[in-house]
Every structure is written in structure tokens, then in C-alpha cells.
């Protein structure tokens, strides 16, 4: 079949190095992946096309790029199912510096991974033989351990797009891999770092990383587990954790969300500058009748009792993080 690859090209050495799309028309086999198509372009049409790849079997993590706007492994994405009117668009990953064409600089990615100290930190004397971990205790680590460091999640992270200080999905999933490891005993330090600016609370839960991860690591879910571990460890509250608590309290109490109180409690009742700064917005909303009745004026929903019952039942439900919680708990005892 005849297909068109619209490839975003960038050559830092060109007279005009502005990145722009170039159209390549090739004859593709039905089994072709996007990477097969790019390799064909490189081999038969334009040898200057820069593409990074190695295994061609979605395990080395070299070939992440944006296909039709979203990060993916080019070698795991079928060409035939990526076509819109016979064409596919291919761009380098986002959030990272483009070296040339589809090749991005991985230093931001590795810097973040390094920052979470991705190695076991056990305490006490070294065992005679290996560190033993039970099978069950490692089960919750299977997903984060599946990460092949391709950077797809970092490419499409909507927080990193506006704040490069954020550790980002890959590094946080990696952090969870050690927080959740029964042999690691640096949880107290790890969690308190993750509780800071740039850590677990900076995720906006947009789900993009979960969607683009080619290995089912679901980084955002790991970030949520880190938040749970942080809260169980009793670390100082943050806007993020207060938001979670206020949200839950409000729903448990009235069956629905008290948005006004949520804002006040998240920022902190005594965060006068922030509350003052948002006063004009609040007043405008009030004048236009759009300020939800908050605090004592927030009414219970009919059936709030049933919601309360759900909350009570959840409190006694076993947590998926029970193992982690008890471990980080003991580290603080």
C-alpha cells in the first residue's frame, strides 16, 4: 500500500534550522510498523533522516516518538492502523530537546531518574547471601519494573510542559518501585523528598502518561500510591494532601463536594495572602450567583447517609498498599 509519512524534521546544521514537516511517500507492506516505514525512508529515500532505534521489538525503549500527536514506540505501532487518509504524522518526543529530526536528548529524562536514587538502600549488616524478598511482597512492583525507560510518559506529561522542576511520571514510578520494595529502608527520606515541590503532589492526574506508556506501567497510578504512602507516613501536609483530605471529608459528610471550602482548606485556612488574592474572583462569582454555598451553608445531599456508609466500609477495606504502609509506618515508629 501507498502511504505518506509526514515527518517533523529538524537539522541544527541547516541554513534555516526551523523545524518543519516533510512528506515522504513510500510503498509499505501491510505488516509494517511506523518504524519500518521510517527505516524504509532512511534507507531508500533520505539517508539524512535521524531515527533512533535498536531492538525493533518494543523492549529497548529507543524509538519513542510522537505518532499522530501522542508518544508511542514506533516499533510497536502498526502503520496501517495509524493512517488518516493514507497518512501518518511522526514527530520527536515532547518536553525534551530535539537533537535532530526524531532524536531527542535523554538528559532531562535520566536526570529525573537519577534524582530519585533508583537503587536499593537497605540498612543493617549485609546478609551472608542475597537479600531475600518474598514473592508476594514483590507482586505490586511488577508493573513499575516493566518500565523500559523509553520516555514516552515524560514526552506527553502535561505538568512537565509547564514546570520542568516536576520529577515526572517515569521517575516517580521508579521511586515507587523502591518505596514499595520490602528490602529498601530509605522510605522515610524518599517519601519526604517526594512530598516536596516537584514531587508526588504536582501531578494533575491528566492520565496522559497512563495512556501512552507502552508497557502498562501506569505511572499516574504509581504516583497515587506514593501519595497514599506519604499520607500514611504522617508527613507534613501540602496543598495537594489537604485537597485530598478536604475533598474526602466533604463528600463523606454531605454526599457532595463543598467547592468553596475545598479551596480554603487546600490553600490553608491561615494562608491569608493566597486567600486575599483569590477574594476578587470569589466576589465576582458571588455577584453573578456562581459561588457555591460553602461551609455552614453547604447542604447535605439527599442520600448522604449512603455515601457515608461507603466511606465507613472503605476505611476497613484492605489497602493495596498495606505492605508499603506498614513498612513506612515502622520506619517512623
Amino acid at each position, binding site marked *: 500500500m501507498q502511504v505518506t509519512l509526514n515527518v517533523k524534521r529538524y537539522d541544527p*546544521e541547516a541554513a534555516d534550522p526551523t523545524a518543519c514537516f516533510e512528506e515522504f511517500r513510500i510503498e509499505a507492506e501491510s505488516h509494517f510498523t511506523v518504524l519500518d516505514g521510517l527505516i524504509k525512508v532512511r534507507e531508500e529515500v533520505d539517508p539524512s533522516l535521524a531515527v533512533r532505534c535498536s531492538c525493533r521489538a518494543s523492549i529497548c525503549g529507543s524509538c519513542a516518538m510522537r505518532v499522530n500527536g501522542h508518544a508511542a514506540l514506533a516499533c510497536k505501532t502498526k502503520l496501517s492502523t495509524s493512517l488518516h487518509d493514507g497518512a501518518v504524522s511522526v514527530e520527536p518526543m515532547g518536553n525534551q530537546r530535539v537533537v*535532530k529530526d526524531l532524536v531527542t536528548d535523554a538528559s532531562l529524562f535520566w536526570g529525573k531518574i537519577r534524582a530519585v536514587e533508583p537503587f536499593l538502600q537497605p540498612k543493617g549488616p549485609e546478609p551472608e547471601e542475597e537479600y531475600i524478598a518474598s514473592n508476594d511482597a514483590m507482586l505490586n512492583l511488577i508493573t513499575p519494573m516493566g518500565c523500559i525507560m523509553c520516555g514516552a510518559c515524560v514526552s506527553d506529561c502535561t505538568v512537565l510542559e509547564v514546570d520542568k522542576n516536576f520529577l515526572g511520571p517515569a521517575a516517580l514510578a521508579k521511586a515507587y518501585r523502591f518505596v514499595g520494595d520490602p528490602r529498601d529502608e530509605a522510605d522515610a527520606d524518599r517519601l519526604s523528598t517526594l512530598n516536596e515541590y516537584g514531587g508526588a503532589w504536582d501531578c494533575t492526574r491528566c492520565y496522559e502518561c497512563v495512556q501512552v506508556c507502552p508497557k502498562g506501567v501506569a505511572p499516574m497510578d504509581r504516583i497515587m500510591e506514593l501519595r497514599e504512602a506519604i499520607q500514611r507516613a504522617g508527613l507534613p501536609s501540602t496543598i495537594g494532601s489537604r485537597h485530598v483530605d478536604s475533598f474526602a471529608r466533604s463528600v463523606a459528610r454531605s454526599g457532595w463536594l463543598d467547592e468553596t471550602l475545598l479551596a480554603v482548606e487546600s490553600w490553608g485556612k491561615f494562608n491569608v495572602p493566597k486567600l486575599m488574592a483569590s477574594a476578587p474572583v470569589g466576589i465576582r462569582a458571588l455577584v453573578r450567583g456562581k459561588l457555591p454555598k460553602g461551609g455552614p451553608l453547604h447542604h447535605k445531599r439527599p442520600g448522604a447517609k449512603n455515601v457515608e456508609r461507603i466511606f465507613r466500609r472503605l476505611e476497613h477495606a484492605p489497602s493495596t498498599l498495606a505492605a508499603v504502609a506498614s513498612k513506612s509506618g515502622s520506619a517512623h515508629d
Partner: protein
Amino acid sequence: MAAAHDKIKELKERYAKLPVAHKGAVYNTDLIFHIELGYMLDAAETICASGLVRKESRGAHYRRDIPQRNDEEWLRHTTAVLEDGAARIGTLPVTITEWQPEARVY
């Protein structure tokens, strides 16, 4: 094997005249593959030339014309040195320590 050896020789001659189409200095895979191809041809020649010299069968090196192993003459390493663009094959003695060599039979 002799035919393959000739073919590699021919490819090496063609390779010597092969231009690199892309002249960029940044992430130039055209250049990288060009260099790698040269090394691959060297490796292919080494395998082929060593196989021709080694008149026995041993492990993955299997010759239909000499299917037997010959420890008497060939319990030796093969060495290859690039000389005037071709592989010069030699041998070195094997130091045997704990594990005695024996035939692999299943």
C-alpha cells in the same frame, strides 16, 4: 565457505569505493552505518577465514567435509590479524585449568 570468502572479498572491494551520502556532523546514522558495515565485513571475513583454516568440527563451527573433532591438532585458539586489508589467521595454545575439554554429546 570458499565461495562466501570470495564474496566477502568482493564486498570489501565495493565497500572501499562506497561514499557516505549524508555529510552532517549531528546524529549522522548514515555515517555510523557506513562505519559499522566495514566492521561487519571484517568480522565476516574473520569467521570465514578461520573456518577455512580449522580443519575439524567443534561446537558451532561445523564442517560437513570434516565432521570430527580433532583435539590433537586443533585444541587451539584461532587468531586473526588484519594485515594489508585481509585477515591473517594464526593459532595460540589453549590453557586448560579446571574443566577438561570433552566431546559434547547429548
